[in-house]
């Protein structure tokens, strides 16, 4: 089997490093990644733990497909309790760290406690050391990675935080390979709270696949017929900026803090504008798609900018200057800041300022001030001290809750729910708050054939997407490979050496989703928390196809009730004992 059956557990308070067996029973129910990490966190953490305290844990998880030749299997899951939301946080990061962790002999790394002084963790097969990070603390992610490569060699893969993580900003991210991020929910500040600057990993061990000839044949066929197809190649050719024009044409492109869904400057920041500026591409470990597109403009280089960055730090801030967005993006990558959340924070601050509710000194389209913001926020300097608290907390202090575009404390991604009603339900019910990585029904509605302005069938659409992604991100596979559950079942059966049916995978997807919910219920979250910002219910969109539309509150409530009913949850959004029994939990 492709598991290494070993967990590396590091306690930074005591300095202990332990190697212990992976729970085999749990792998059969939760596989790896999002599911297995959530299971460990749920069982080990208990309720009510303060996210930035030593009691919180940072769990890095591979999956059964990690380290094999299965395409798009390079991602790593990082699970913790979020300082932004107080609920479960599961992030995924591309690159090759996950494969190196597996090659070093571990399925999972659990980091506990809090170091007295800044440290980094160096893993090289069986050698695991907690080392001083005095020379790295205060440095950006780019310099941190470069220095660690100098010390440990270019083969070593680095996960690190920047000043934002060190300063415990609730939307700080973890970076790897310079431009890849575990972006959301302040996962970087959990690492910062442990005074853990970086993790360096290199491995030289094998990953055993029981039936390699069968896997080789499956992978050959999959690459030819299932991976390098039109449905997936858009990510390689145009990358996520392709979505800019689709989103803008559908009227769901967040503009000036979601006051509109059509941005007049979209042509300046769409795939056409970006395409000619791309010098080269990059792929994660074992990826045939290669969605990483570098862009150089003026003195800034980024891998991206991705759609979410163009939407939230571009249109949502009223900025159509591509060079400025790229520079902003590069600063965020180096400082370790989530661009989705910061774009929302700035959009909110700009609207507050322009409405005269609170002067944050920044207005829509003010590029000069906008470019100063990542640094001010990362260091909590000047106006950055307030802005670094995130949209929900800002609204609590200064008002504007009705247009604070967040769910459960996590700022919204770039698809306006008024033009994609199922996306509203997906945001409201996502386990980690306002998130597009649990289900992405906007592809079926605003970008597809389904009527976006009806609730009929939408609860089931969202549930299906949530279960699909729950199992996909537990195996782990990348979201850019739109593979069937049948293909998933073939691949995982091959690496585990036992037949895993589609039905078994589907049930595991539902089980994982219920587990995430149980975590949040234990933290006190209820049905009332499964909601959306008032703007979505009250302020009609101004332009394009959804002009004049809101997501009517009563329609949303009906959709949510149907969602609970279909899930077998009670009216408070909690899984019933019968449902848990059915799922063997």
């Amino acid at each position, binding site marked *: 089997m492709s598991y290494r059956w070993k967990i590396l557990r590091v306690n930074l308070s005591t300095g202990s490093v332990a190697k212990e067996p992976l729970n085999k029973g749990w792998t059969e129910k939760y596989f790896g990644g999002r599911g297995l990490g959530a299971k460990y966190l749920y069982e080990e953490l208990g309720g009510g733990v303060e996210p930035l305290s030593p009691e919180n844990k940072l769990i890095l998880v591979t999956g059964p497909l990690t380290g094999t030749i299965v395409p798009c299997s390079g991602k790593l899951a990082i699970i913790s309790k979020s300082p932004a939301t107080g609920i479960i946080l599961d992030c995924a990061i591309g690159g090759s760290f996950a494969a190196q962790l597996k090659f070093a002999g571990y399925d999972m790394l659990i980091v506990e406690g809090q170091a007295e002084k800044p440290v980094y963790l160096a893993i090289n097969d069986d050698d695991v050391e907690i080392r001083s990070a005095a020379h790295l603390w205060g440095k950006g992610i780019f310099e941190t990675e470069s220095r660690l490569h100098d010390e440990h060699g270019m083969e070593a893969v680095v996960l690190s935080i920047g000043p934002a993580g060190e300063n415990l900003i609730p939307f700080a991210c973890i970076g790897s390979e310079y431009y890849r991020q575990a972006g959301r929910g302040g996962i970087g500040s959990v690492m910062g709270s442990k005074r853990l600057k970086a993790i360096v990993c290199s491995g030289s061990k094998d990953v055993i696949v029981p039936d390699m000839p069968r896997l080789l044949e499956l992978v050959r066929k999959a690459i030819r017929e299932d991976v390098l*197809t039109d449905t997936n190649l858009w*990510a390689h050719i145009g990358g996520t900026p392709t979505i800019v024009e*689709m989103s803008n044409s559908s009227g769901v492109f967040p503009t000036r803090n979601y006051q509109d869904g059509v941005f007049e400057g979209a042509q300046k920041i769409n795939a056409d504008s970006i395409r000619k500026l791309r010098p080269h591409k990059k792929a994660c470990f074992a990826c045939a798609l290669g969605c990483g597109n570098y862009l150089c403009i003026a003195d800034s280089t980024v891998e991206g900018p991705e759609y979410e960055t163009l939407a939230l730090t571009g249109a949502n801030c009223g900025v159509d200057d591509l060079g400025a967005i790229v520079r902003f993006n590069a600063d965020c990558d180096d400082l370790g800041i989530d661009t989705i959340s910061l774009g929302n924070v700035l959009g909110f601050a700009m609207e507050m300022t322009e409405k005269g509710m609170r002067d944050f000194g920044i207005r829509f389209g003010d590029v000069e001030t906008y470019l100063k913001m990542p640094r001010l926020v990362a260091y909590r300097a000047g106006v950055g001290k307030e802005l670094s608290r995130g949209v929900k907390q800002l609204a609590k202090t200064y008002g504007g809750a009705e247009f604070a575009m967040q769910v459960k404390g996590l700022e919204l991604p770039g698809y306006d729910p008024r033009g994609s009603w199922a996306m509203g339900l997906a945001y409201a019910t996502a386990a980690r708050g306002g998130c597009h990585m649990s289900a992405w029904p906007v592809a079926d509605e605003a970008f597809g054939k389904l009527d976006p302005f009806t609730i009929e069938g939408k609860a089931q659409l969202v549930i299906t997407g949530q279960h699909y992604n729950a199992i996909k991100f537990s195996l782990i596979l990348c979201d850019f490979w739109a593979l069937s559950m049948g293909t998933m079942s073939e691949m995982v059966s091959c690496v585990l050496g036992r037949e895993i049916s589609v039905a078994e995978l589907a049930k595991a997807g539902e089980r994982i989703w219920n587990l995430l919910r149980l975590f949040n219920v234990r933290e006190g979250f209820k049905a009332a928390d499964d909601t959306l910002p008032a703007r979505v219910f009250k302020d009609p969109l101004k332009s394009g196809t959804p002009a004049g539309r809101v997501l009517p509150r009563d329609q949303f409530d009906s959709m949510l009730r149907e969602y609970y009913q279909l899930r077998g949850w009670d009216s408070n959004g909690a899984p019933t004992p019968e449902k848990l029994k059915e799922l063997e939990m």
Partner: protein
Amino acid sequence: MAVVWVRTYGSLSSYSVEEDVGKGDGAPLVFQGRRVKVGEVFPRLHIPEEAVSFVAINGAKAAKDAWVTDGDKVAIFPLVAGG
């Protein structure tokens, strides 16, 4: 006669004239009639209809049987997954 300006995206980019992509309005296609259905644009570029998932006319989402007239700008997208 109608001149329709066409841009293609993602994997459909290969059906377009490379040097015209990324330059403002895209590639011009000339039709005999004063107006045509946008679905008639696809065969002119040899794009299989089933490969087209999303069409925008002049920056707004449109159905495959929507009409286009002289000077209209058409953007054609494949199915996208992920996000």
